């Protein structure tokens, strides 16, 4: 029953700074022992601390949990000591900082075979070990509610966003672990677990040989790899439906929990972007400091370090830490420079989805794009732009306008449950009026969620 879906709409932004398919190692002397877990990585989470400064922790020790559902726990990725707890406005917890031991010791969780576990036991084990936050849900794009029964589960095996990590390379050789993880995941739903692979390239056998799941092929430009687009085309969400999703590396973490009994969130990240001297792949532990990767590896100039891809990631400082869900670190140049008559110059080096810059003469050119807005925010004038990069049967402009005026009924009927901010990232990118589209959609989702709760 596998499906093959061709998407015509979308946009590939050909950026320079793709990570070479080589693993670079971090010199042990360079390695920072500062790890951070950020409650802000989990949208709308209201955290309650379980540790205080000075506490000794192991990898897998609970640091904080969700106030609204205390079963959902967030654990330390390393063993060591709680160094600081940084708070922001209204004493909101921003960071739990850990000083890691040189050798990691792990909390011991029970290992068990998949046949011996019921759905509830698997969920329970994942909740206890802190792995549950990897399971996210649509609608709203937040951590899944463990008491829901999702109608299906989605795993996108590939990323189509510019410069983002190549899972075929990152997971190479982990076939057994991946399959093991899947065996547990598929039990979480009564419906189908969908594994969606890239049909633009030859996908890795690791994905194509996966068992117990339905393998669907997606062809076309970005955002073909976005799980939201995939859900829309295979098992669309209606009001009241819940679909869960996770990423391939999260599946590996699940497998490690049940085979080794460890909360092991070591992962592979791609360091990329035009400002990186040697863009490479790295093996790191979730929450580790990006300075490890960036030391002597950045070009001169004012740089913007992004945890995540360039369209949806979060801005972090040069010695900031990798976000919980992120597998890509991107560095681009800050664009805080004025440009003389830039709106009328030919612009051979400028990227645009339109053909108003002469760069259309070089279709295969790789672009360096900085963080400049390239113009000021305006009221909506141009139409038809979003539709070209939005491969869903949803009217993006009308949905955004409905969200702006907070017309919940209209938002629902136009498909707010099917979308997440990341699905609108390209709309935001191409927007002539420079609207903050992802922010609008996020606020809309929050509003609808509040209304429904």
């Amino acid at each position, binding site marked *: 029953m596998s499906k093959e879906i061709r998407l015509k709409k979308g946009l590939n*932004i050909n*950026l320079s700074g793709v990570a070479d398919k080589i693993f670079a190692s971090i010199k042990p002397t360079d390695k920072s022992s500062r790890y951070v877990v950020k409650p802000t990585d989990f949208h709308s989470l209201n955290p309650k601390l379980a540790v205080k400064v000075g506490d000794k922790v192991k990898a897998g020790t609970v640091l904080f949990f969700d106030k609204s559902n205390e079963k959902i726990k967030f654990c330390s990725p390393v063993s060591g000591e709680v160094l600081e707890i940084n708070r922001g406005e209204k004493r909101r917890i921003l960071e739990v900082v850990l000083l890691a031991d040189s050798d990691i010791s792990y909390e011991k969780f029970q290992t068990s075979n998949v046949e011996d576990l019921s759905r509830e036991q698997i969920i329970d084990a994942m909740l206890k070990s802190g792995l549950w936050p990897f399971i996210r849900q649509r609608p709203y794009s937040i951590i899944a509610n463990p008491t829901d029964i999702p109608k299906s589960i989605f795993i996108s095996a590939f990323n189509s966003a510019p410069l983002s990590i190549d899972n075929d390379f990152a997971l190479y050789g982990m076939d057994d672990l991946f399959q093991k993880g899947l065996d547990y995941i598929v039990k979480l739903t009564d419906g189908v677990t969908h594994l969606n692979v890239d049909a633009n390239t030859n996908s890795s056998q690791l994905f194509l040989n996966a068992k117990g799941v339905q393998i669907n092929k997606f062809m076309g430009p970005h955002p073909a790899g976005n799980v939201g687009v995939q859900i829309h085309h295979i098992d*669309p969400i*209606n*009001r009241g439906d819940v679909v869960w999703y996770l990423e391939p590396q999260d599946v590996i973490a699940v497998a490690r929990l049940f085979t080794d009994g460890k909360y092991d969130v070591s992962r592979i990240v791609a360091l990329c972007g035009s400002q990186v001297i040697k863009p490479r792949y790295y093996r790191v532990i979730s929450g580790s400091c990006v300075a490890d990767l960036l030391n002597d590896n950045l070009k001169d100039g004012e740089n*913007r370090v*992004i945890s995540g891809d*360039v*369209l*949806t*990631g979060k801005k972090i400082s040069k010695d900031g830490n990798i976000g919980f869900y992120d597998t890509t670190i*991107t560095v*681009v140049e800050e*664009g*805080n420079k*004025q*440009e*003389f*008559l*830039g*709106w*009328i110059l030919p*612009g051979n080096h400028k*990227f*645009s*989805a*339109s*053909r*108003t*810059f002469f760069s259309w003469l070089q279709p295969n050119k790789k672009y360096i*794009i*900085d*963080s*400049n*807005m*390239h*113009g*000021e925010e*305006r*009221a*909506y*004038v*141009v*139409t*038809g732009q979003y539709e070209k990069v939005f491969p869903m*049967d*949803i*009217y993006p402009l*009308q949905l955004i306008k409905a969200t702006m005026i907070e017309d919940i009924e209209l938002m629902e*009927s*136009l498909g707010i449950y099917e979308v997440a901010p990341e699905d609108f*990232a390209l709309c*935001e*990118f191409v927007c*002539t009026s*420079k609207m*903050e*589209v*992802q*922010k609008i959609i996020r606020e809309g989702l929050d509003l609808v969620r509040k209304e429904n709760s």
Partner: protein
Amino acid sequence: MKLFKNILDTVKPHFLKGGKLEKMYPAYDAFETFLFVPDHTTHSGSHIRDSIDLKRTMAFVVIAMLPCILFGMWNIGSQYHIGVNSLLPENEQISYSFLDNFMFGFWKFLPLLVVSYAVGLAVEFAFAISRGHSVNEGYLVSGMLIPLIMPIDVPLWMLAISVVFAVVIGKEVFGGTGMNILNPALTARAFLFFAYPKHMSGDKVWVHGAGTDGYSGETILGQLATNTTSWFDLEKWNTSDAFYGFIPGSLGETSFLAILVGAIILLFTGVGSWRIMLYTFVGGYLTALLFNFWGANYLMSTPAHVQLLIGGFAFGAVFMATDPVTATQTNKGKIIYGLLIGFFAIVIRVFNPAYPEGMMLAILLMNVFAPLIDHYVVGSNIKRRLNRVKV
């Protein structure tokens, strides 16, 4: 470049908060951002942005109009000189050079352009300052369109009034660029048409001096509308004249070829909507074809392809109907919108001999109905989503 930067840096403090001219900041901002794309960086969502902005989009619409403008200036001179010569006996006729024609048109066009931009931008700046928002680029296009669709002899004060009316009533009362319901340039023309009909219609206004000097300034549409000659009996002009634009008319509208070049620029760059353009022509052609079968008057019997070449049909389809603010916003809606503009433009032409130029009213009419069309198109999407639940 340094020089501009220095000037801006010296005067900027006066416009900032606490400065003497604090309230005039939008005016300063307009000049600064005109000279320099600002150094604003992304702060939420996508970290990189497409290089396009509204300034560039609007600039490309103006660039697309350039062929029409250049040709139009020559044609204004040419039509005038043809008119003047027509009063002279054959041996006294003077032959005018290309440059004579062009420069004549240039000097006729320039005051119109200056008044249109000066008055329009003054109103825009005034509203921006009083509302404290930045000056939008929309008028760059409207200000250029207005002199292109006005009679060349229109008194400047009338032009100024119609511009004020268009910008204030047509646009600013709704909230400015992006919020208006009617196309501002056409609002200006419609205002003039209904307020001062003597200066906007009839056979005396479309060639310079026709009203005073006594030679004919009649347009093709005007002649056909009198129902005395058919297109086939018109001796003065043929299809290729209409295609190249060697015919009387407003400055921008006569040359189909120049409009075609503009259309190609708009479509290739992705600034204009191909759906609206294509379907306006399709709608106009099919409607004209239908009337060919009826043939009750000479306008009905005019060949369908000629209907698209004469009058303001092509110019309206390419530059007016495609205004994204006043058009439908959905892709399906654009098809319906285009078809109906074409349909109504021809219907108004063939049924209303008093005013054979149907394009302006057709577009304004569909401007009003555009949101309704979108409402039903979006409604069908909502229904589809509801049906999905039932299945």
